[in-house]
């Protein structure tokens, strides 16, 4: 099948400064960047050398289960890269070719890479079940990076990266707009609680830099309100930064140089306000990029890095919470549960905020992706996104009656309404974990 993705124009990619690969053809470029990456990233070459085609991964991948397209079996997806790698970079592949599953890169290879590496959510569930621990997400990340070097980038990714370059956040929120948003949210909190709860912007000499998802200033306002109330009640000296208002890091999802630039942007923002602690908001892949990719990309960071749900959990005994009369389940964002060590903290926080917390099955590191992971939020991908979200919908349905679905990641928050609506569950309320913390906190205000 041909990918429905809208592809960015070359002039718009040039503005992002992505280094082009290969002087002759895209095929040469692909082979040359793959060679660079397999030499410099040991994990990639080990994973490309290792697969035994045991087939364990097939039934564990929601992308294959939802589409039943054999190219979406993780081992088959990885093979799109593996066969080119073998042909050009292994002795067996160079001498025995197709007998050892090696084949040269042709135009169809590039088309298939675009189609199938953009049907992988980089969720890493296959890696949990692979006897060798082969992580298809790493292969997909490499493949999308290589495609970007060939000038092949979804328009959606390019648009996000352009906003990030211009404003420091995905949504393109400049400082005057941010101030307007902050004033509006402060008024909302005043109306609700009667208290002056501030969201400081670019405040120098702050102990904590809070890095929210920029979607918290568009659709997910209650998530930002939850964070602001936590800092308020703890008496924290905190700020957000107008130059780095973004926990997401889409570079991880299509171009690694852009990922490093955003890592550097966060580092500079932390230095500008003097923060010794950087707290990341509700964003899955951005947490992964900050936690796993910052140090090697931009040298060790001179501050402590913490996820906001870990921060809330650590301070739980100091948060005056009253349990809300709700039955709630948690969707584990892939990058928290399989890549970021945020597993028990959201559960502890939820148990303190609601009367009934129930698990969906499977959960924690075996949880299924929402189907939007790795930035697959394009409208033109909707049919595929709904198929990728099928396992998740079945999981939610199996929990039985619910008042709230906690989905503490902005990509999940953008994807899940479509998935639930498609499966007849549009009435179910959903949002972040912080949203519930904000509602459960007793702040002692006149209206509390």
């Amino acid at each position, binding site marked *: 099948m041909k990918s429905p993705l*809208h592809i960015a124009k070359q002039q718009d990619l040039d503005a992002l400064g992505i280094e082009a690969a290969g002087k002759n053809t895209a095929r040469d470029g692909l082979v040359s960047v793959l060679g660079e990456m397999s030499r410099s990233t040991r994990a990639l070459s080990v994973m490309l050398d290792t697969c035994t085609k045991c087939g364990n991964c097939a039934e564990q991948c929601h992308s294959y289960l939802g589409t039943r397209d054999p190219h979406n079996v993780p081992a088959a997806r990885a093979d799109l890269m593996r066969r080119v790698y073998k042909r050009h970079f292994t002795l067996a592949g160079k001498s025995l070719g197709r007998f050892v599953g090696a084949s040269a890169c042709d135009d169809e290879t590039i088309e298939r890479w675009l189609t199938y590496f953009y049907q992988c959510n980089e969720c890493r569930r296959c890696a949990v079940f692979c006897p060798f621990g082969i992580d298809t997400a790493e292969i997909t990340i490499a493949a999308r990076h290589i495609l970007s070097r060939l000038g092949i980038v979804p328009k959606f990714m390019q648009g996000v990266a352009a906003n990030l370059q211009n404003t420091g956040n995905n949504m393109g929120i400049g400082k*005057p707009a941010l101030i307007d948003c902050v004033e509006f949210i402060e008024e909302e909190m005043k109306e609700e609680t009667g208290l002056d709860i501030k969201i400081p912007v670019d405040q120098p000499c702050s102990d904590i830099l809070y890095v929210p*998802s920029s979607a918290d*200033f*568009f659709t997910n306002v209650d998530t930002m309100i939850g964070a602001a109330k936590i800092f308020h009640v703890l008496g924290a000296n905190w700020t957000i930064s107008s130059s780095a208002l973004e926990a997401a890091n889409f570079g991880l999802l299509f171009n690694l140089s852009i990922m490093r630039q955003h890592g550097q942007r966060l580092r500079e923002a932390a230095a500008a306000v003097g923060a010794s602690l950087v707290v990341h908001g509700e964003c899955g892949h951005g947490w992964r990029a900050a936690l796993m990719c910052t140090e090697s990309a931009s040298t060790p960071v001179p501050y402590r890095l913490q996820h906001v749900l870990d921060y809330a959990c650590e301070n739980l005994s100091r948060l005056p919470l009253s349990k809300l009369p709700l039955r709630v389940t948690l969707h584990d964002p892939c990058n928290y549960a399989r890549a970021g060590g945020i597993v028990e903290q959201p559960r502890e926080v939820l148990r303190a905020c609601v009367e009934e917390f129930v698990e969906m099955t499977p959960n924690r590191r075996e949880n299924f992706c929402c189907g939007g992971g790795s930035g697959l939020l394009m409208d033109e991908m909707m049919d595929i996104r709904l198929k990728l979200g099928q396992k998740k919908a079945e999981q939610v349905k199996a929990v039985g009656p619910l008042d709230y679905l906690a989905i503490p990641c902005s990509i999940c928050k953008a994807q899940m309404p479509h998935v639930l609506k498609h499966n007849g569950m549009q009435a179910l309320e959903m949002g972040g974990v912080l949203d519930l913390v904000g509602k459960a906190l007793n702040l002692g205000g006149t209206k509390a």
Partner: protein
Amino acid sequence: MSVDSVETVHLELDEDGFLCDPQTWNEQAVEALARLEDIDELTDGHWKVIHFLRDYHRQFGIAPMVRKLCKETGFTLQEIYTMFPSGPAKGACKLAGLPKPTGCV
């Protein structure tokens, strides 16, 4: 009432169906875009939302927070969805001639 002639409007749209050039926005464009969004009739409510979006975008360069849009226009989110079936970020912004909001939306 009979309609003698149907005016044709030529609009240049991007792949997402948004105006390529925001300068080409006018009331006729809104009517044409409404048909593409399966909106049968443009009411005063539609225009109130459209004008608020345009004013906010002119001042701040982005679409307003969805909650602010609801509060300032007096419509609930459900009412906005009824008026603009593809939602505030897509349908409403499209008719208002704004760029498509991007990121995790």
